[in-house]
């Protein structure tokens, strides 16, 4: 599945829910279902500290593709993290660098990614792209 197809899938899932309570309910469910973050990687180095909530991010490369693992102490943030990982996990560095992530706006959660929302998400996406760039450079050698 391409990134666009993954994003479309998510937008469809959310468009069936017109009530904000249902949307956040789904987000909370996704947050709770997010794969457990491996404790050995829960370090200060992997911590992205926001004003409102914390996010931990760990990335690794395998066969030219980048994989992510993430966690947050706030469940709603965790839910959005789950969606971002669903879209960006197991992709090439270029795909990650170029992904516009339009789906977040499409599902009505754009406010959570505005820079002023110091919940760690904006910083996390930036960090994901930096990992992609770092691995891209490394792979090119």
């Amino acid at each position, binding site marked *: 599945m391409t990134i666009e197809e993954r994003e479309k899938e998510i937008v469809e899932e959310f468009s069936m829910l017109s009530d*904000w*309570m249902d949307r*956040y*309910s789904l987000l*909370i469910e996704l947050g709770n279902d997010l794969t457990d973050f491996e404790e050995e990687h829960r370090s200060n180095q992997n911590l992205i500290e926001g*004003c*409102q*909530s*914390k996010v931990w991010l760990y990335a690794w490369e395998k066969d030219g593709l980048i994989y992510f693992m993430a966690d947050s*102490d*706030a*469940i*709603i*943030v965790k839910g959005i993290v789950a969606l971002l990982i669903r879209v960006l996990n197991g992709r090439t560095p270029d795909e990650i660098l170029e992904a516009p992530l339009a789906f977040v706006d499409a599902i009505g959660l754009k406010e*959570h990614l505005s820079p002023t929302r110091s*919940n760690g998400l904006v910083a996390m996406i930036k960090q994901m792209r930096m990992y992609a760039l770092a691995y891209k450079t490394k792979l090119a050698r």
Partner: protein
Amino acid sequence: MNFPIDEIRKDFPILSRPVNGRPLVYFDNGATAQTPRQVVEAMDRVYYEHNSNIHRGIHTLSNLSTEAFEAAREKVRDFINAAESRQIIFTRGTTEAINLVAHSFGAAFMQPGDALVVSEMEHHSNIVPWQLLAERMQLELKVLPVLDNGELDLAALPALLDERTRLLAITHISNVLGTINPVKEIVALAHSKGVKVLIDGAQAIHHTKVDVAALDCDFYVFSGHKMYGPTGTGVLYGKAELLEAMPPWQGGGEMIQQVRFSGSTYNELPYKFEAGTPDYVGVVGLGAAVDYLQQLGMAEIAAYEKELFAYAVERLEGLGDLIFYGRAAQRGSLLSFLPEGIHPFDAGTLLDKMGIAVRTGHHCAQPLMDRFGIPGTVRASFGLYNTKSEVDALAEGLLKVRQLFA
């Protein structure tokens, strides 16, 4: 009780705007208060009728503008019962006022090896300026602890006020815990040990009658935007003999008497500490905010808010699943809590969807959050236009939040 709450709410048009399709319930007054149209109109009138730079001109508009500015100063003097209007210094806010004192009081009265005391419940604005001063002048910064119930550990205070200690900086009402500190008694104790006191009144000035003469504090600071006035305005009150002895902070026009390259001399109080063109429009607005509060009466406002606060405590404690931070015997104006097992960000985000504005996070009091071992709280802070039905909306909102996490 005969508090004209419906009339008051009409003075604040913003209160009738919907948020996310729901009526706005504004419970973030601790961050900033809304502004009544009387204040907005007073500022409009400056721009429409007599806008002119103050103090320096000789023409009519300049005189009118100067009169309005100085009239506002006198209003503030009267509001806090200061002896003379030259003791009222206009700043950009509480933070700037504290930075001014840190800089100038430090320069005049402190030397390497001296000490300062702040409390564990202080807002960053009443911590960091002192840290910067301590670094610059090699001072020791000591911390008065907070007890589990959110009260100051007053038993520990005398030992902290030793012979090297020059100043104690303390909040009147905590912006996180709602604790009302016994500042009058604290000032008396500090003075008996030769220590000066700065009181951070940002969260108190609009909730309780402040009488700086009765408190006998050395400095009292507060912001306009938290007391229903405009942003960008604030007040530093100081004892005259201290302000006289303190060197200027910012240099420039207005604060000078004579400027020569061989050396300049400085203006008298209060102008010595008001460099450059002030926000004279904002200050007129601040004066109008003082008028608004004086007309309602601080005693009447305090009585109304006391009843509202008691109702909020009852309703929210009644939910049974909230952990409260700050249970001091003397408290008011705001409630900090965590719905058990729910992150404050999650709770605040969902409440926002219901039109309820609360604040979440560390509230610019990270040391206090560390002390309680929490990432932050949900804070509902009340103003004179809030109602019991708004408290009900918050309680119902919190029930919905709980449902979503069930």
